[in-house]
């Protein structure tokens, strides 16, 4: 693939990502917002949290980019298998969100009698924010309409690396719309705010679970 055609498709991916970013925010926003509100605050901390989330989301994008190219054919919007995957992803998303919100599984506490280090050199490494990887990845493979449009386009490209590049640049275009979530770092993290965010996450988990189950049931009933 020539450099010119590569840059042309990258430009196309960026424009597509940026144009359809609001839809991605609408799809993922109900997951991200309560999750990020339940994390410790601070703009710097949020940058790390959001970075991990978006990184996992990128992994989902790239996985899909590879899959559509390897499938060797465009995945039309009317592809009937899409709804199985969509339903399953939404149910998994619901379970992940509910697990994060309820704090399951509990982190292992120090066993009684086990000695703590006498000297702690440097800061204790911070554990990754709960749910970042699972939620990020699952939202990354949640088939929203722009995702499929990008998939159709990427599948037509000449090589696997071109498809991956297309999806990576498409991701950048959509990720720009998530930057305003950093401002949530300014919200003071009182126990009430964290509790509200967790309860909201449970409610939204119910919604995604219900929505996913409905899709699966409709597929089973109507074929």
């Amino acid at each position, binding site marked *: 693939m020539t450099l010119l055609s590569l840059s042309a498709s990258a430009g196309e991916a960026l424009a597509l990502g940026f144009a359809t970013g*609001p*839809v991605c925010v*609408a*799809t993922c926003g109900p997951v991200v917002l309560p999750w990020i509100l339940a994390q410790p605050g601070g703009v710097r901390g949020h940058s790390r949290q959001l970075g991990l989330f978006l990184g996992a989301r990128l992994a989902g994008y790239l996985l899909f980019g590879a899959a559509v190219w390897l499938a060797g054919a465009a995945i*039309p*919007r*009317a592809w009937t298998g899409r709804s199985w995957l969509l339903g399953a992803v939404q149910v998994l998303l619901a379970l992940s969100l509910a697990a994060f919100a309820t704090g399951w599984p509990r982190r292992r506490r120090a066993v009684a009698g086990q000695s703590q280090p006498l000297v702690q050199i440097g800061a204790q490494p911070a554990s990754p924010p709960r749910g970042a990887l699972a939620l990020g990845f699952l939202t990354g493979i949640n088939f*929203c309409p722009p995702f499929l449009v990008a998939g159709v386009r990427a599948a037509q490209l000449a090589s696997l690396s071109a498809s991956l590049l297309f999806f990576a640049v498409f991701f950048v275009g959509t990720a720009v719309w998530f930057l305003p979530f950093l401002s949530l770092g300014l919200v003071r993290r009182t126990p009430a705010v964290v509790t509200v965010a967790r309860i909201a996450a449970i409610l939204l988990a119910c919604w995604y679970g219900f929505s996913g189950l409905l899709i699966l049931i409709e597929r089973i009933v109507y074929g």
Partner: protein
Amino acid sequence: MRKRWLAVAGYVGAALTLAIAALVPFVLMGGITQAVAHAGLRVDEVYTGGTVARSFTRNGYLVSVYEPVQPRLLQRGGPFVQVVFSPASGLPSNVDELIDLDGDGQPDVRVRFAVPGDARASLHGAVQALNSRYRSVEPIGADSFTQLLARTGDRIVLRIPLAPRR
């Protein structure tokens, strides 16, 4: 001194609240209503059907074709085109129409429905798509916002779903 000013401000606020209460039914409510009405807001097109694109006069009634309505963000239901037949009282007892929806001079759908004498009776009909841009629906009734045949007042509202783009 500061405490005094705060107290004054508090009582001024209380007095203002009472004044607002007295004005609510006479001025305030109407004023805010007018402000909302002129704020440039509109009801979502999924409910209203959008804006009229073109109209055709038939024998005793008017057929109005609306601009296509696309769902926003993750709005449920697909895109559709609304067609309105009015007045319903001017329609024949059986309507069988070829309608050009996109203004290219070619009919896009064939629409058939019966118009019952009782204005409260449900409507049932059929839409046959003549090209791939639209979806046939048979039977069609008061199904959903995006696939609909219903009577509202003295109008018959028909919503024809657009086929998914490939």
